[in-house]
């Protein structure tokens, strides 16, 4: 991905650099050539997955179109879910809402739980990374707690909060906080002694040291944790919502299964996949912007 991004950037530069040398070359063909090249690059990226997608759809269609097959073929999925696809915004009250509302309810829970875990995770990770005693005391406990599956926390949090909404948010928090803590701690522990020496000579106070040295130096590690965390959050929310009910994509899937609307399940899975992918890319993009220049030289 980054490789091809670099190539698309250098391509136009090369052609403009060539222009003054060959003075007789008119500008238009050069530009057309550039667009052609860009189209080519895009095609290289888009065509292969498209071909695979179409092929697998065809195989799926062929397998599932026979009478008595348990799963619907793609053509039937499309026919059944037409309304849901083209009108995601309807709201008939209760949980009878368009997919947009279900997805946005899930995303809100993730946003809350994940923000909480990012803040707590970075704070605790800094503590564990910075203090030997905090590491000795906390690290073994974290290592045990992080292996507990997300859904195992749900009954306990329901008992504690006596409500679905905060419980779901807690499950997201507790699922995604561990990789953030652990990666932040590793990042902080790996801050080169040189940077610490610079801070000591300049006499940065602890708060300045945290903001000006620790966070930037550990940023690549922190973002690795954040990226794993967002993936886990999205995994956990779908499962948690199946159990807590209400509006949300997880319960939408469970509800569709209970009403035997298999096509709706497939459509929902498609959306879950796309949104998970977008969330991951978002954090990756943010990491790229924030950590530019952080790579050691």
């Amino acid at each position, binding site marked *: 991905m980054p490789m091809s991004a670099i190539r698309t950037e250098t391509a136009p530069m090369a052609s403009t650099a060539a222009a003054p040398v060959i003075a007789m070359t008119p500008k238009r063909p050069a530009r057309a050539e550039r667009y052609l090249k860009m189209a080519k690059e895009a095609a290289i990226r888009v065509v292969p997955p498209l071909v695979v997608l179409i092929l697998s759809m065809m195989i799926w269609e062929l397998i599932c179109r026979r009478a008595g097959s348990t799963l619907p073929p793609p053509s039937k999925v499309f026919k059944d879910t037409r309304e849901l696809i083209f009108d995601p915004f309807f709201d008939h009250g209760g949980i009878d809402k368009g997919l947009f509302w279900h997805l946005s309810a899930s995303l809100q829970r993730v946003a809350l739980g994940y923000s909480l875990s990012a803040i707590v995770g970075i704070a605790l990770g800094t503590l564990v990374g910075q203090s030997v005693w905090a590491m000795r005391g906390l690290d073994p406990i974290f290592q045990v707690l992080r292996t507990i599956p997300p859904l195992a926390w749900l009954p306990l949090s329901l008992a504690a909060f006596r409500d679905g909404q905060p419980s779901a948010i807690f499950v997201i928090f507790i699922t995604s906080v561990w990789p953030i803590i652990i990666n932040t701690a590793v990042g902080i522990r790996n801050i080169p002694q*040189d940077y610490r020496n610079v801070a000591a*000579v*300049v*006499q940065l106070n602890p708060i300045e040291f945290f903001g*000006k040295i620790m966070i930037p130096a550990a940023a690549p590690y922190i973002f690795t944790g954040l990226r794993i965390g967002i993936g886990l959050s999205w995994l956990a929310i779908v499962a948690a919502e199946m159990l807590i009910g209400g509006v949300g994509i997880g319960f939408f899937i469970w509800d569709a299964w209970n009403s035997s609307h298999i096509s709706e399940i497939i459509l929902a899975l498609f959306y879950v996949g796309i949104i998970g992918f977008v969330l991951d890319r978002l954090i990756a993009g943010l990491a790229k912007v924030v950590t530019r220049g952080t790579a050691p030289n």
Partner: protein
Amino acid sequence: MHPYLKLDHIDKSFTRGAATTEVLKDINLTIGKGEYVSIIGHSGCGKSTLLNIVAGLTETTTGCVLLENREVNSPGPDRAVVFQNHSLLPWLTVYENVRLGVDKVFARSKSRGERDAWTMHNLNLVQMAHAKDKRPSEISGGMKQRVGIARALAMEPKVLLLDEPFGALDALTRAHLQDSVMALHQKLGNTILMITHDVDEAVLLSDRIVMMTNGPSARIGEVLEVPLARPRRRLELATNVAYLKCRQRVLEFLYERHRFVEAA
């Protein structure tokens, strides 16, 4: 000579478990204001430890460092260090790297505009103002070291500590940078303590050369005055008798009397 920086009976030993290694033994050294002193010795003799002690980054076991008759035992901008591997923060631009120190040291005494001007002034001193918006990864090794020097100078240190500042550079860049440091020393009159393992560098730059014996328990073996007038010119010195004599003395010390023993 009026003592400006004084290393008073410094011993340093590192303890790991039951084993104690004595690194430095009874180091006494007095440096006058504006003096350029080099410490030379084989690798592993503890010369970097000594510099870290002066910088306050390492504690002494016994003895102390006095700067203007006051004990210093923690790091501070009055003893700015130019690190061997430049240690610029890669996420900051050249300007921001220098400004970081300036903002801390002159937080009260200079206004925002003055701090900006002072940062640029120091970048100009090392001829790096043109690259002020570049990141360390975008400039060469010699340029990084120039910025490192600017960062240290900008803190207006009482003593400038150079930890093998030219060690990681190629020979041509090193010569160029040595000339720059000589010019800066001439112009600003800083007190400089430099660690080096390069005999020519030591003789060319220093007023005095402190030669250290091999560790463990390294001590100051000999102190050599370099009786060469400043400004010094590299080419003229190549045939200068006093220069060659000094060079000879240091070489004899390092390669005859205190030859490097691998086991140490």
